[in-house]
């Protein structure tokens, strides 16, 4: 046996089933929250705002709001996916099975990323009820969303292995990702910021993610999109490397 495809598929489907079992928490709640943003910032306030880069305010904030939800949800899902088996002890089955890091990641990270794609699709459909928008590069947008979802699912998985309590699982999405995304140009262009805040904003990596996705939607970006793509790929590679190390050494997985 070299690669256990059935094992990877079993983890993938089991994790997806878990998400659908908790439909209201996993799917409905984030869609509702994002819809409220669209109602307030898109439909209600958006009409009174001036266009940014020739794009209506409601349409301008869609990529940022999409990422605001995706980054948090993907990270949380992937981290809970591996943390819960560690917490309840069911990880024994995974560790004693003929599955390695590749199958585990395809299963857990693939399921978290797939769920995020479903979430993104629902959010975009929901947004169309409140805001008129079109996607300039739909294929690239899809690929970029897949890339970001995969990167943050890996990040979430590593977080789930690292965490030794529920508090740590919540701290990273709530106290790090969410503020960085809010300040990462979700609701505004960083070119609107005065100095030195504009330079400070460029240190925030989420700025590059938001602008990367915004470029695929509007064709406009505050930063070089190649830097956005490079950073996303680098983050994905870093997380994959960290997880490979975790499996190789058994850190917090095997005693």
């Amino acid at each position, binding site marked *: *046996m*070299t690669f*256990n*495809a*059935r*094992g990877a*598929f*079993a*983890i993938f*489907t*089991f994790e997806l*089933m*878990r998400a659908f*079992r908790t439909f209201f928490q996993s799917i409905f709640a984030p869609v509702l929250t994002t819809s409220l943003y669209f109602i307030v910032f898109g439909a209600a306030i958006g009409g009174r705002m001036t266009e940014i880069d020739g794009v209506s305010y409601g349409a301008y904030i869609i990529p940022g709001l999409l990422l605001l939800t995706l980054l948090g949800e993907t990270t949380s899902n992937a981290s809970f996916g591996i943390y819960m088996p560690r917490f*309840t*002890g*069911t990880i*024994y*089955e*995974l*560790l*004693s*099975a*003929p*599955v*390695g890091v590749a199958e585990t990641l395809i299963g857990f990270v693939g399921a978290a990323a797939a769920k995020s794609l479903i979430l993104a699709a629902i959010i975009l459909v929901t947004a169309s009820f409140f805001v008129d928008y079109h996607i300039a590069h739909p294929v690239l947008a899809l690929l970029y969303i897949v890339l970001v979802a995969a990167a943050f699912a890996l990040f979430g998985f590593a977080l789930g292995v690292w965490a030794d309590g529920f508090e740590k699982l919540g701290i990273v999405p709530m106290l790090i990702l969410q503020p960085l995304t809010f300040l990462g140009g979700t609701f505004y262009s960083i070119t609107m910021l005065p100095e030195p805040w504009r330079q400070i904003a460029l240190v925030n990596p989420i700025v590059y993610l938001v602008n990367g996705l915004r470029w695929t939607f509007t064709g406009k970006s505050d930063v070089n999109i190649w830097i956005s793509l490079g950073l996303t790929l680098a983050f994905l590679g870093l997380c994959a490397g960290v997880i490979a190390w975790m499996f190789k050494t*058994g850190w917090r997985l*095997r*005693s």
Partner: protein
Amino acid sequence: MQPILEIVGLSKRYADGPTALDTVDLTINKGEIFALLGPNGAGKTTLIGAVCGLVRPSGGTIRAFGMDLAKDWRSARARIGLVPQEMATDMFTKVVDAVTYSRGLFGLKRDPARIEEILTSLTLWDKRDNQIRHLSGGMKRRVLIAKALAHDPELLFLDEPTAGVDVELRRDMWRQIGAMRANGTTIVLTTHYIEEAEEMADRVGIIDKGNLLLVEEKRALMARMGSIEASFTLAVPQPRVPAALADFPLSLSEDGATLTYRGHGGADEARAEVAHLVEALVRAGIGFTAIDTHQSSLEDIFVDLVEHSAQKGARA
């Protein structure tokens, strides 16, 4: 005997803790039930964990089915099953989904007929659509066994399989384990219940403080290390142990009415010596009205060995 598992020099030392396993050598033969006995913290679960991939050994080699577990771990693990000590399973999953998941995890294609067979054999088929959290403790433990059997392992580890279950269910589990062995599965079980090992095991291993104190065929062990205690109720109380019986290890009760023999060094030898004692009593004209005999259990042997090990450790 064909070995199915060969452990050589297995060690596990934790960075800030004691030595959990100290150069353990152990061979498990195909088709046997092997019981690993030991007090809490002896290293039983660590030993199982090292074979099943839950524990990273500090040293030594493990070969299963002739394959080196460090290299051919995928192929070897696909043929090994584990029922953990803790009641660890996703409580919100349906029984049938949990068992189907386990089969897929071990690389086998879906086989609803086989899953039905396993669930039926463990009297879980009627509960197949129940969430595991709604089952009783005994049923949950059966689900863990069903999950471990889902990929038809050739070597099955049962870590305290009957811990916390009532007597009736324990007997039922023993029957289940016997049936698995009858189907050709090799079984290694750890237990606190010595009677469990006495009832089921072909061979026993006694482990304490990470050291395997002995591995022996159960019957041979009991014959070699067992003892017999025989009490004779005398027809006429005696003031002291009669001189004609001085060669026997005897003691007399305070009222002189009961003569007690305690023979060590193997149950078979002791049993023969009791027969000689009866002849000697008859020859000496000492009448008795009743004989009460007691043969030591595996538990007595286990306690003796572990206490001896503790005394040795204290002296060292």
